[in-house]
């Protein structure tokens, strides 16, 4: 198989989530959407997943949460949460982990809250069910949590229904629910994508604070490398259902080694507010489950050579934590060749 997951079966202490060589099929096995995904999240670490839509980031999160939709199945590999193999855990046992050990936050907070109940009662319900608090205790704890996530008027907010709160406030409520039982792991799937930039910056700070204060481990999904850069310690780059590069954020931003990562960086928000050419990544990603011999990015890669298409490409270890899946990863000419990539198509010429 492509990739060389660490062979040790005894888990090193202090890894909250370990995904090893995971394959996931969709459409009842008709297509393989994830191929050999391996990643780890340690306590107090924020790991970012980045890639285009359809690259498998969300599916990886759902597998790690044990909430794969019907027709989607893990066909290979293991998911280990806090030393326990949870790959084939029955849903009743998952429920014990959800909310209490693993929290989750998604893009659209309004969709996960009951529009007719006050946010206080929804937060208190979690505390009563998952932590066995009594009504009064749960209420006090709810106010404490809402204050901790930066809602200044928590005493008022508990009596409000979701429609009375803004998107940023709702996302804070979702985070309060997700951390209400002191989970070990928070999974945030595009949790800031729909928010205004000022609110996004506040939520990013909140997640960092929670990590600092509680040692929370976070798996954070975003299609925006700039957001990943602001928040994460390590980043895993997805392309067409595979990990193409992973490593410490700063190293990946400063010295990306895979042509796809290099392209993502060139199109990301520089944030310097300077006028510059806006670059694009030419071409389209392959369809989910497409059978491609060799590198899955070769079709869009200007640095591609015959060797790229000859056989599947394994991850090459480039540093203690840095890996990339590219035949030419050690070729000094690679960066120059891939720079052509974002030179951009002729707009509107055909």
């Amino acid at each position, binding site marked *: 198989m492509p990739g060389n997951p660490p062979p040790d079966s005894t888990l090193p202490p202090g890894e909250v989530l370990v995904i090893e060589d995971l394959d996931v099929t969709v459409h009842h096995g008709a297509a393989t959407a994830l191929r050999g995904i391996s990643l780890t999240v340690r306590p107090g670490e924020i790991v970012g997943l980045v890639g*285009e*839509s359809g690259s498998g980031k969300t599916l990886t999160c759902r597998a790690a949460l044990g909430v794969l939709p019907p027709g989607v199945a893990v066909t290979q590999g293991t998911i280990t949460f806090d030393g326990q193999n949870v790959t084939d855990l029955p849903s009743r046992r998952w429920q014990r982990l959800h909310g209490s050990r693993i929290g989750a936050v998604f893009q659209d907070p309004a969709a996960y809250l009951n529009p007719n109940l006050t946010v206080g009662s929804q937060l208190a319900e979690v505390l009563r069910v998952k932590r066995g608090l009594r009504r009064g205790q749960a209420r006090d704890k709810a106010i404490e949590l809402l*204050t*901790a996530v*930066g809602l200044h008027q928590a005493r008022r907010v508990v009596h409000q229904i979701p429609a009375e709160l*803004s*998107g940023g406030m709702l996302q804070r409520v979702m985070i309060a629910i997700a951390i209400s039982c002191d989970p070990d792991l928070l999974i945030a799937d595009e949790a800031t994508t729909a928010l*205004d*930039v*000022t*609110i*996004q*910056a506040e939520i*990013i*700070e909140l997640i960092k*604070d929670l990590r*600092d*204060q509680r040692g929370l481990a976070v798996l954070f999904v975003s*299609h*925006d*490398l*700039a*957001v990943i*850069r*602001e928040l994460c310690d390590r980043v895993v780059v997805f392309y067409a259902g595979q990990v193409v590069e992973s490593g410490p954020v700063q190293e990946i*931003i400063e010295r990306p080694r895979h042509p796809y990562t290099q*392209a*993502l*960086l060139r*199109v*990301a*928000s*520089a*944030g*310097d*507010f*300077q*006028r*510059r*050419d*806006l*670059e*694009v*990544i030419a071409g*389209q990603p392959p369809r989910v489950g497409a059978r491609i011999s060799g590198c899955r990015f070769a079709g869009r890669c200007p640095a591609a050579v015959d060797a790229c298409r000859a056989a599947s490409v394994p991850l090459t270890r480039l540093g203690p934590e840095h890996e990339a899946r590219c035949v030419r990863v050690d070729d000094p000419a690679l960066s120059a060749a891939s720079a052509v990539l974002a030179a*951009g*198509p002729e*707009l*509107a*010429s*055909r």
Partner: protein
Amino acid sequence: MTTTAATGPLLEVSGVDVVLGRGGRASLVLSGVDLNVWPGEIVGLVGETGSGKTTLARTIVGLARPRAGRVLFNGREISSLRGAARRRERRSGHIQLVFQDPLRSLDPDLTVGDIVGEGLKIRGDLPAGQIGERVGEALTMVGLTTVLRPQRPGQLSGGQRQRVSIARALAAGPRLLLCDEPVSALDASNRNYILRLLAGLRDRLGLPIVIISHDLSSLAGIADRVVVLYRGRIVEDGPVSQVFTTPRHPYTALLMASAPRVSAHGTQPGRELSVHQLRRTTADPEPPTAPGACVFAARCPFAMAACAVQPPLDPVAGPAGSRWSAACVRHDEWPALARERSPVVAARLPARARS
């Protein structure tokens, strides 16, 4: 680039108030909005959710009616038109709005060709053959092949759907294009593609474009002028090169400081402000809360007694002919005050246990 030509603005919005809802639920969504668009310029309209960006666009095209103020297009008042005159103006297609969500604004049962040609068909002044030609031209202009004509929106990617929306607007032969959040649902590469496409349309057709976005940094790449809206009021309006170098309204500065970036912070020491220098803390004096106070006062760390009255959007000193204005009584003072504030986090709730 914007030239200070002798020609007047193509679009003049002046003193527009818009009220949405009725009775007890009525709320003033836009208040005293002035906005000019000159021929051939790209204007970026930024602001957060609920600031009134979309309502302003809808007011310009005539989908919302102002309670006060006027909208002039090419010197002619269009906001007061009623009945047949109003329908005629709308059908002329002079001003086209590209809606926010292509999945919801494109009819899922129509083909791409039908969607792009529908407006022309309703207008009824072109034979079918010519409509077909115009549809083909519009699709070509947005970089889509005519092979897509028989497809339906559900079969297209997000970026392609957005281009279909733009093609539909172009088919009408507009003289002004308004795009409501054209890139917010797209990934970085598709976002850049759409923005370049719009810049190309301006360059080749001289088409003025208003781009509504909550993302300041992507506008920096293509806009000539930026207009910042906060809670229904324009708080700053000026050339991007000026506004993005030395913003004169603290809200503009906060938006800029909040934008995520791949480049390391602090690459422009002395000029770049941190969000912590621009956010209110509990240590700041209470802002004025009178009903007519500055809209930003409640979030502004520099608010003082004089901010109890909303300042007008007044010209600020800039390069000659730069048409730069801001609505802040302290527009000259706050940058220095901001630099005196701590650029790192002011003590948040519980003390942080850092190792």
